[in-house]
């Protein structure tokens, strides 16, 4: 048995180094008597074991930006300014008018994991994804960079790169923002419907997880970093620097609440409807969503827990083999003009990553400018934390534990 294991290991090593072609893989595995079964291994991106030194580099395609005046941009639903009358996106129209570049704007980014599952096979096979840019959440950007699926930005094409808010430039997963630039940021905190809580405010994570008045009417987010992050913060842990034990302790805490019947479910951004109707009394929720929900239902409450909240951004990245990289960079540069970003923020109500947006918002929409959830003050920002980047092994371990919680 040992020899076969050794052989197997050696075989895997050669395979990992890419020395074995698919055909010899078949022949070699034939020895195991299961040739048919082994014909379809799944390629990885990090030959040599996932150390930073071997981070693969994303391939660039021949840039057709000069001849094909288009950009294919995938983004999350309802995440850009919309003209209520024409249902068009004014900021995109202005861009097209100014540069003569058409933007194929597709709202097909519903979920980081789902989107990753959709593009990974193409990226792994060195194929064009048909997209020039999309907006991924921080941790997904970390993974995409780690796996070499996104290209370095050509900063010469993005002079407005200097406009990124200081707090967002030195992020752990992309120091100096060489691969990614934030599109919108937001906090995860607690939203509640006073009608369903009996007029009670829900201000702390502890209350959310234990208050009998909320029993069976609480939802948490399927975004692991927000849900576990908020709970870890409530337990007094530092989410920018924590251990396995800290993480698992938070999981246990959530499990306790779940087993006690406190938690009804885990949701993506579909928590809005039940929250508005009162079927959900209180939940973890994202700022921009809640500001938008409050427009229809002003009684909804939102609190950033005193123990701290999570801060996340969705970031522009340019995938490997994108066909119109220079055009995409022009687009990113355009949105980094404070006037342009101010219009988007005024509509989507998330937090602008662009310096100078606040002054413009104060002029065009003082209500928005004075909303601490959209234009947070220094005190609020000091309570917000970014979940630290995870290694590949941690990512697997943690999401396994979290998945047993959400689907178990």
């Amino acid at each position: 048995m040992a020899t076969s294991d050794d052989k197997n290991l050696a075989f895997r090593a050669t395979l990992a180094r890419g020395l074995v072609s698919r055909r010899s893989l078949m022949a070699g595995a034939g020895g195991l008597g299961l040739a048919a079964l082994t014909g379809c291994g799944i390629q990885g991106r990090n030959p040599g074991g996932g150390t930073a030194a071997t981070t693969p580099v994303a391939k660039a395609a021949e840039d057709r930006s000069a001849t094909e005046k288009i950009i294919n941009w995938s983004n999350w639903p309802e995440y850009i300014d919309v003209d209520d009358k024409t249902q068009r996106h004014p900021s995109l129209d202005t861009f097209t008018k100014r540069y003569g570049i058409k933007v194929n704007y597709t709202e097909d980014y519903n979920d980081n994991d789902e989107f990753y599952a959709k593009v990974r096979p193409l990226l792994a096979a060195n194929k064009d994804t048909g997209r020039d840019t999309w907006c991924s959440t921080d941790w997904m950007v970390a993974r995409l960079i780690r796996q070499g699926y996104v290209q370095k930005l050509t900063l010469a094409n993005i002079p407005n790169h200097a406009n990124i808010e200081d707090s967002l430039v030195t992020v752990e997963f992309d120091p100096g923002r060489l691969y990614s630039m934030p599109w919108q940021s937001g906090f995860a905190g607690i939203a509640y419907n006073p009608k369903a809580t009996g007029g009670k405010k829900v201000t702390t994570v502890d209350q959310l997880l234990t208050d009998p008045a909320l029993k069976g009417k609480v939802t948490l987010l399927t975004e692991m970093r927000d849900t576990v992050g908020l709970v870890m913060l409530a337990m007094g842990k530092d989410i920018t620097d924590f251990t396995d034990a800290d993480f698992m302790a938070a999981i246990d805490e959530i499990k306790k609440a779940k087993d006690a019947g406190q938690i009804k479910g885990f949701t993506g951004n579909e928590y809005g409807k039940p929250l508005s109707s009162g079927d959900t009394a209180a939940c973890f929720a994202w700022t921009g969503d809640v500001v938008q929900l409050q427009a229809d239902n002003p009684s909804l409450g939102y609190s950033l827990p005193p123990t701290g909240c999570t801060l996340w951004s969705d970031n522009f990245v340019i995938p490997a083999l994108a066909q119109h990289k220079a055009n995409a960079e022009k687009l990113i540069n355009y949105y980094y003009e404070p006037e342009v970003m101010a219009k988007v923020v005024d509509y989507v109500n998330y937090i602008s990553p662009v310096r100078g947006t606040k002054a413009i918002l104060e002029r065009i929409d003082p209500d928005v400018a004075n909303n601490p959830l959209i234009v947070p003050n220094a005190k609020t920002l000091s309570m917000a934390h970014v979940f630290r980047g995870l290694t590949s092994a941690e990512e697997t371990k943690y999401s396994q534990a979290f998945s047993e919680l959400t689907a178990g």
Partner: protein
Amino acid sequence: MPYALLAPGLLWLIIFFVAPMITTLSTSLQEGNVDDGFVFTGNVAIYWDALHAYWPQLVRSLVYAGTATVLSLLLGYPLAYYIASRRGRAKNVLLVLVIAPFFTSFLIRTMAWQSILASDGGLLVKVLGWLHLTWLFDAFGNVLQFLHLSPNGEILYSPWAVIWGLTYNFLPFMILPLYTSLDRLDGRLLEAARDLYATPRDTFRFVTWPMSLPGVVSGTLLTFIPAAGDYINSRLLGNTQTVMIGQVIDSQFLRVLDYPLASALSFVLLVLILALVTIYVRKAGTEELV
């Protein structure tokens, strides 16, 4: 030469059934992670791990799907019988009504039940309110709680809501085959039974039911198999205690990126369903059907 006629069907089966099955089996026996790639190691232990960790969800899926199938049969049989007994225009209208929900997406139809069953401002509670029958809503919730089909007397987000969603969504798959076999039922047989002094009950038991058995078998299969793998109903209408195996596979595949475990679970589900279906079809003894 007649075998050549089999080719398109065989090819279809090979490409869309046999090949994916082999891929799934192969993936389940690999080890690795997304960064370093997955390599075949013949790790059979994964099946033990998968079953050990997720047998409750597997059993729950089969129980929910089974219950939904029985409910569909109870609801679908009288309706199919009635449609088959109509003639002309009425029959066509009724058939279109059965199929009409398919014009709306599965997801939307399931979400609609959220709006119907919601205890706060849901359609059901509103209608009952107009009729001054709100107590009925609460009573139903209490009955569900008593039967352990709802954790806190809520109608939505309970095991009952999941089973109900499954029943609703797969009901047409039950009605259509039932209708087909009941429609072919020779009216003269029923006449003969009556002439021979069979009670309506005996007529049903010895004529109608046996004659409709092929419809029953294919209807139950068409309902049970997709219902067992469904993960939308439990996600939208259930709570944290109603998780079905489809949700586990979804989260293992998309979120955890543990492709081998997800494949192992899929394969187990496939084998379980195949086994159950084989036993069922043997018992039902309708060789002419399968």
